[in-house]
């Protein structure tokens, strides 16, 4: 079964199969999801889910607190859709210290 996933800001609707996590399902579309590990370690795929039912796998507590999880803030790579969904990617907040740090390739 396939469901429509609306990614806010990108304003693009794309389908994701119920047996794929949102990162695996949506990464085949160009420039829709951030590049990440697809399995929970890196935290780049943090989303807020504003609409839709889903099942989820264990979240990495280094990136998602219990409180986040209760507020539908989760890792897209640990979420599988059960209905059509509306999601928004939450860009990583970069602290001032981080900004001063040279990041390879920036």
């Amino acid at each position: 079964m396939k469901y429509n996933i609306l990614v806010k800001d990108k304003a693009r609707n794309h389908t994701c199969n119920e047996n794929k996590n949102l990162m695996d399902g949506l990464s085949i579309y160009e420039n829709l999801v951030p590049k990440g590990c697809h399995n929970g370690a890196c935290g780049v795929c943090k989303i807020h889910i504003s609409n839709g039912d889903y099942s989820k796998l264990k979240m990495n507590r280094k990136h998602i607190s219990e409180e986040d999880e209760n507020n539908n803030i989760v890792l897209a790579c640990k979420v599988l859709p059960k209905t059509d969904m509306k999601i928004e990617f939450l860009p990583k907040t970069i602290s001032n210290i981080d900004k001063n740090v040279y990041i390879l390739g920036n």
Partner: protein
Amino acid sequence: MSGVMRLGHIDLNVLDIDKSRTYYENIMGMNVVREDDNGTLYLKCWDEWDKYSLILRPSEEATFNTAAYKVEKDSDIDDLKEKIEAYGVSTELLEAGVLAECGRSLKFTAPSGHIFHLYAEKTFVGKDVGDTNPRPWPFEGKGIKAHWIDHVLLMCEGPENVMAGTKFFQEVLEFNLAEQVCVGPEGSLQAATWLARTSTPHDIAFVAGPKTGMHHFAFFLDGWNDILRAADVMAMHDVKIDVTPQRHGITRGETIYFFDPSGHRLETFAGLGYLMQPDMPTVTWTEDELWRGIFYHTGIENGAFTTAYTLSAYK
């Protein structure tokens, strides 16, 4: 003093220990050699002779704990303790058995920001092919059949910590600087370094990033054909590949980057690269050719290489 020989093991936290077990056994071809009551798994590659090279701990986090290096003699532990403390880094001497299956060990936080262990003894098991008239590879075995864990690349908070970690590994642990990426005014900052104690281009590497953590650790394969076969095995198992088969400019290795079930980045690194020797001149990559150094064919950034990596557990 003889000092550090090689990378001994990597210690990681994982989200789903059963998935991780299946993955490292069926895809990487490792064997689980020990299991603790709390679910912690110890794994070994077929071409390694010590008991284990990877520790996976069931956890609420997918994070990096420590890397351990094996030293040649037990007395090296005392010599290095003195040397490390004289350098201004405090150490902790752990009794035999605190590190599972190991003799006493020395624990410290290096100036790179990472926790390391040094140990001289670990339970001996032997290679899967034995040491008398051995076959070149085990007929049994699953998946990629990686030979051994080859090196680890750690992320440091900024070039300052890359440089501090590099200096420590050179001056105290007597690693040799094989390659470096130099950036900033007149290339005065090391943004990344590759250091060796063995005769291969790197046993450890440091790269500057926003947070302390582990970028990847690598499994050794013989050559390019093994890389192609490994990528096939990964695709057959739906493994998330970060960077498809490529050559590195830095180290000259043949590579694939991919992720484990907790999102830890792994590499299969093939070929010797080159013969590393203490008197080999350090290779330098400049800021403008940095991506040529990393991905030699395209010369451009690829995959989630700079954005996605595992954070350290203790930060």
